[in-house]
């Protein structure tokens, strides 16, 4: 039993493969989280805009992306779109699919933060001659982000976990490489090692979210 799951020799052998996978996972996270935080912010600003022509399309995109399972979106982009002549490498397909999904989730978090601010903050800023972009940048967004920081972080944890779905389209990220190592070695230890790596990566973030939430509830 211990041989099958906690074989240190096999873990050591598969380590280079898993490190390559981890690197890919981190690259994917950097793209999806980085661009997602920015894209989500713009989506949420559009979704809370008083202008209907901005608000409605933004809300439609957010709703659609939150209702669509990310795996369906990924397989559609990777395997469905080539039928329309649109073929792309696995990394691009995964990045686009998860970015769309994830921007919508970030947008919902931001939106809660934006809507939690009293109208007086806008009025005070505008009354002192600040322009709309200045008001957003210096008064509204900093407060909105601060109010939803635990939720942004919590969503980020979800994104890291989400990236393991990329193994479905053979992107050589952490889970894919671990599963590869398992099938080569006929041993489950690489999977245990991969799980441990995810744990080490995410546990501090989960802890941080809990601490924030406790602090806010005081």
């Amino acid at each position, binding site marked *: 039993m211990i041989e099958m799951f906690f074989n240190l020799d096999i873990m050591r052998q598969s380590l280079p493969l898993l490190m390559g996978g981890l690197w890919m996972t981190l690259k994917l996270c950097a793209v999806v989280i980085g661009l997602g935080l920015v894209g989500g912010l713009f989506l949420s600003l559009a979704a809370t805009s008083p202008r209907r022509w901005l608000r409605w399309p933004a809300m439609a995109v957010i709703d659609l992306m939150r209702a669509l399972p990310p795996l369906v979106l990924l397989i559609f982009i990777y395997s469905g779109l080539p039928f329309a002549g649109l073929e792309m490498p696995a990394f691009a397909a995964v990045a686009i699919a998860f970015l769309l999904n994830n921007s919508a989730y970030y947008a919902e978090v931001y939106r809660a933060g934006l809507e939690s601010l*009293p109208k*007086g*903050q806008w*009025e*005070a*800023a*505008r*009354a*002192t*001659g*600040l*322009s709309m972009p*200045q008001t957003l940048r*210096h*008064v509204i967004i*900093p*407060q909105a982000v*601060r109010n939803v920081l635990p939720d942004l972080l919590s969503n980020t944890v979800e994104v890291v976990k989400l990236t393991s779905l990329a193994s479905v389209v053979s992107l050589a990220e952490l889970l894919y490489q671990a599963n590869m190592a398992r099938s080569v070695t006929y041993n489950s230890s690489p999977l245990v090692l991969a799980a441990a790596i995810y744990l080490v990566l995410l546990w501090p973030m989960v802890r941080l979210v809990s601490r924030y939430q406790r602090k806010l509830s005081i």
Partner: protein
Amino acid sequence: MTPMLEVAALEKRFGDTTVLRNINLKVGRGELVFVIGPSGSGKSTMLRCCNRLEEPTSGSILIDGKNIMNALSKNLNTLRLQTGMVFQGFHLYPHMSVVRNVMLAQTLAMKRGKAEAKARAMDMLDRVGLAHKADAMPTELSGGQQQRVAIARALALDPKVMLFDEPTSALDPELVGSVLKVMKDLKAQGMTMLVVSHEMGFAREAADRVVFMDGGVVVEQGPPEAIFGNPQHERTRAFLSRVSSH
């Protein structure tokens, strides 16, 4: 001499409801004009039209002789520097220290340098008696102190007119005096002020003129002795007796 602020034929409609009808009033240079009236009389909406925080339906708002209704929205930000506004709910920026609250619009809207803005902010905080709180966060201050910081924030932009929207209504009674004192000092220094408030005692004592509004119109206006001592209209009398009875 042209008045510092002139509201002429101001109308404001929300959909089918008319909340302001043919409002005309003037605030001379260095004058303190008080607007009183029952809640829902449109006095706050009128005040908020003076810096176009509320967009008037028609009429004109002249500040120092210039009609701000003609301004494109692009230029509105610059025009708003001429009117300092103080709100019932203070609306300080809670994520910035007191001094940064007073500096923000100076650096962004007036393009003052950091050092100049800071010096000016400290001057203004000193004027409202709160220089020692410059590095505090707004939440560490009492309501009265927050409102005085809000006044300093508006003053730092060298406005031509100060607009006060029920500045003491959200304050505990024992904190009202400190804010009224700042307003009295401002008047003594020659600031032009338009004040919407329920502080009748202060109006009697400090106002140059009192405007009584009801149902979206100006019912009567005149010196405080006339409005409080000898009101000409039944609605004014009814309102004043209601207010003084409690």
